[in-house]
């Protein structure tokens, strides 16, 4: 199978791929998108149905391929995870974190742990904690919708703070990105509170004279803060300082409609992750539909890019090989080569480097396409998350509204960044859902007399406060009737949760490689991941997050329930090996993934130490461009997608320039 000649061939229909397709298609260029996953469904009711039925409501739970099958559960596969070797588009899921050492359940291959590591060893390897989708429209199906810009200081981490690397051009990168941030904000339809953000911007070196963009404002007013937000936004909390910076609570700019518009107004389904039932939240299917409506964009679903071909003399890309299938576990149904004048890779930060590395049969590029610098796959980062949770003294009514409506942005930059990671703090509206799998854990506790939530026993927290919710009840109380109602209501309506998105440094040894032994059902190698939380810089970020949460909870009169994880296990039976626990400075931590997969084909100003230039164009192959958070030299402190979108608009401009 061959394809007709296109101007541009794109791999991946997520937000990056769809924006570039839309921009090029609007300008009359003929575009082909190769999309590995299934088509965007005509309506989302099937996805909703799958979500409702899923026992574990993980981000991936509504989407194909199926993440678990309880009827297939066995002793050594209690969740009934499908075998990635038998799937055509397997992807990593949150449920696989616990099974990370078992390649029959986990898509990723991991290298062995070194022997005899101490519990606080920086050499300890962990499961990667974030996941992504492989379906039409990509991962924004289940993003939260947080739409923050990065700041000029984020782009000069090395120059200012002596950490990591700078982005090419440093702070000038921000100036160049401003018009594209504008465009991205308009396109996604961000709801934001300009006044609140102005204050933050000015604190972080962004002046209002032009640097916001001439017409700078959000397309829609900010989303109303929740009752949970209000419980944090009180003087005892806002008078706290962290490394001399005041804790200020800011409404979060979000890609969800605060007014009816092209999409519906948010109805507060509290389900943005994993799926917004009414599409009040932006996702890339919106852009994909616009791209297809230009009449110049074609998409091929169930079409997995497997190899990039190069011209031996010019080193330009001459085609992208693909494999097709019909059903997730069925046989390969065809193969072919997509040919265009230019190419844009947007398969996200694990699958894009995998594709580049798999393309290792071209003359002169034995380490893979675009990889003369040996940087492809390196510097894998995430916002490593620290979670803290508690019970407010009065009801604050969580589980209402978008999953998060406010956060602390004021701590995203400061002098402290020469010694520890910066972070933003997200305030959760979903009670202890993420922290403790509630409402179900607390329910089971009071129905069956257990104490997994710590509200039904005699546990004392690190501040010496008893955690039993009602001191009149015996330990492990089993309730019914009116008393069950009042106890559950008392607990559920007081639950609060903080999430710290801790900056991770680029570490060349944290990387994506090709598995030597494991493949998917199409015979393509699976990603081999090495992931550490190695630097004191990052670990100091955890120490700060832990201390600050306790101070915040105390200031608001809440009782902290954050649990201390078990001691990490780094040797012995691999199935018992710790996935995401470590020790540091005498404290034990568990980290979580933020879903922000960053850094595996970074941008830079030198061919020797980066994969693409400041135009997101491969140093090695002039007709090859890349998109997505894999481009980011550092993870910085804002959620990545607004920046991904801005960069996609920017790249589209460069590709159009290069056509003319």
């Amino acid at each position, binding site marked *: 199978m061959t394809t007709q000649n296109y101007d541009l061939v794109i791999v991946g229909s997520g937000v990056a791929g769809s924006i570039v397709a839309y921009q090029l298609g609007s300008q009359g260029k003929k575009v082909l998108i190769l999309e590995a996953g299934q088509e965007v469904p005509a309506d989302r009711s099937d996805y909703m149905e799958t979500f409702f039925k899923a026992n574990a*409501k993980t981000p991936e739970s509504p989407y194909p391929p199926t993440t678990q099958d309880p009827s297939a559960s066995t002793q050594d596969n209690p969740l009934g995870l499908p075998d990635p070797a038998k799937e055509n588009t397997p992807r990593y899921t949150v449920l696989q974190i616990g099974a990370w050492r078992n390649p029959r359940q986990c898509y990723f291959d991991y290298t062995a742990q070194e022997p005899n590591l101490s519990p606080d060893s920086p050499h300890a390897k962990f499961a990667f904690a974030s996941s992504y989708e492989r379906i039409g429209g990509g991962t924004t199906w289940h993003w939260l919708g947080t739409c923050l810009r990065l700041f000029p200081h984020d782009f000069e981490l090395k120059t200012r703070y002596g950490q990591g690397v700078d982005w090419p051009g440093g702070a000038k990168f921000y100036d160049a990105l401003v018009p594209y941030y504008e465009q991205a904000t308009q396109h996604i339809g961000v709801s934001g509170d300009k006044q609140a953000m102005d204050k933050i911007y000015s604190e972080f070196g962004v002046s209002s004279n032009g640097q916001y963009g001439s017409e700078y404002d959000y397309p829609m007013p900010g989303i109303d803060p*929740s009752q949970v937000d209000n419980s944090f936004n009180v003087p005892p909390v806002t008078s706290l300082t962290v490394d001399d910076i005041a804790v200020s609570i800011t409404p979060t700019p979000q890609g969800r409609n605060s007014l009816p518009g092209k999409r519906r107004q948010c*109805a507060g389904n*509290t389900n943005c992750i994993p799926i917004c039932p009414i599409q009040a939240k932006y996702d890339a299917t919106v852009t994909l539909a616009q791209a297809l409506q230009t009449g110049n964009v074609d998409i091929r679903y169930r079409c997995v890019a497997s190899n990039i071909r190069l011209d031996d003399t010019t080193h330009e890309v001459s085609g992208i090989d693909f494999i097709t299938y019909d059903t997730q576990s069925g046989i390969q149904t065809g193969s072919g080569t997509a040919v265009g004048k230019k190419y844009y890779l947007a398969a996200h930060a694990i699958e894009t480097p995998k594709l580049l590395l798999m393309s290792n049969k071209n003359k002169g590029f034995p380490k893979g396409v675009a990889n003369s610098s040996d940087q492809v796959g390196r510097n894998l980062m995430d916002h490593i998350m620290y979670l803290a949770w508690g019970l407010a003294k009065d009801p604050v009514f969580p589980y*209402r509204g978008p999953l998060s409506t406010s956060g602390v942005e004021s701590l995203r930059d400061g002098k402290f960044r020469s010694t520890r990671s910066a972070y933003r703090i997200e305030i959760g509206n979903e009670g202890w859902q993420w922290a403790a799998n509630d409402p179900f854990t607390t*329910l089971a506790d009071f*129905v069956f007399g257990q104490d997994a939530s710590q509200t039904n026993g005699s546990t004392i927290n690190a501040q010496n406060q008893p955690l039993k919710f009602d001191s009149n009840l015996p330990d492990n109380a089993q309730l*019914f009737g009116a008393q069950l*109602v009042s106890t*559950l209501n008392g607990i559920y309506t007081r639950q609060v949760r903080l999430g710290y998105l801790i900056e991770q440094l680029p570490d060349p040894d944290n990387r994506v490689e090709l598995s030597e032994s494991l493949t998917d059902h199409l015979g393509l190698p699976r990603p081999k991941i090495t992931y550490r939380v190695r630097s004191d810089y990052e670990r100091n970020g955890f120490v700060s997050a832990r201390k600050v949460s306790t101070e915040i909870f105390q200031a608001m009169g809440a009782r902290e329930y954050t649990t201390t994880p078990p001691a990490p296990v780094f040797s012995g039976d691999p199935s018992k090996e710790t996935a995401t626990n470590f020790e540091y400075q005498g404290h034990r931590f568990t980290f979580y993934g933020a879903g922000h997969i960053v850094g595996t084909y970074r941008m830079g100003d030198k061919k020797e130490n980066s994969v693409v230039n400041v135009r997101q164009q491969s140093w090695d192959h002039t007709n090859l461009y890349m998109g997505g958070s894999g481009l980011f030299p550092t993870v910085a402190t804002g959620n990545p997608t607004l920046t991904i979108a801005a960069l996609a608009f920017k790249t589209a401009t460069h590709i159009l320039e290069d056509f003319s």
Partner: protein
Amino acid sequence: MSSNNDMDNFIALSAVLTGFNANILRPFLDPVDIKSEYLQVFFTRIAEESGDPKLATNILAKFAQLNGQTNPKLNDQQIGEEMLAPANGANFVLACRKLIFMWYSGAWPTIIPASATAPETTVSEIISAKSYTCGLVWQVMQSHPMGDSNFRYGYWAKAPIPLSDYTGN
């Protein structure tokens, strides 16, 4: 097998154990009809798990007897205590507790006994797409199922209506 009578007893017992009014569990207009699904699951699973095909029927019969008692008439609290009394036997009490869990979560629970390293825990299996959204947990927190809200923009900035409006009690 269940009958109309079973359904009446099942609802009345469920009201006592859950603390929600029978009119909430069995609304006058009930297009969703989750109660029928639950009654069926209750009968099947209890028989399977206890190995006693009559246990569910016995539970409803015991309830009917307590509920019908007139001299003295028992209140909900007293009936609940009698139903959950250890003297009824471990399987009987566990079945009643599972009934509570099912109404609240829309899922059927399995208890994993304590081991040398871990305390007793519960895992559960969602019964159907419908049951997840019908879970009383969402009502008892004065909210709505995640992913299925009938509210409008901005409701989250205000306090919810009183708990009694949700429980009917």
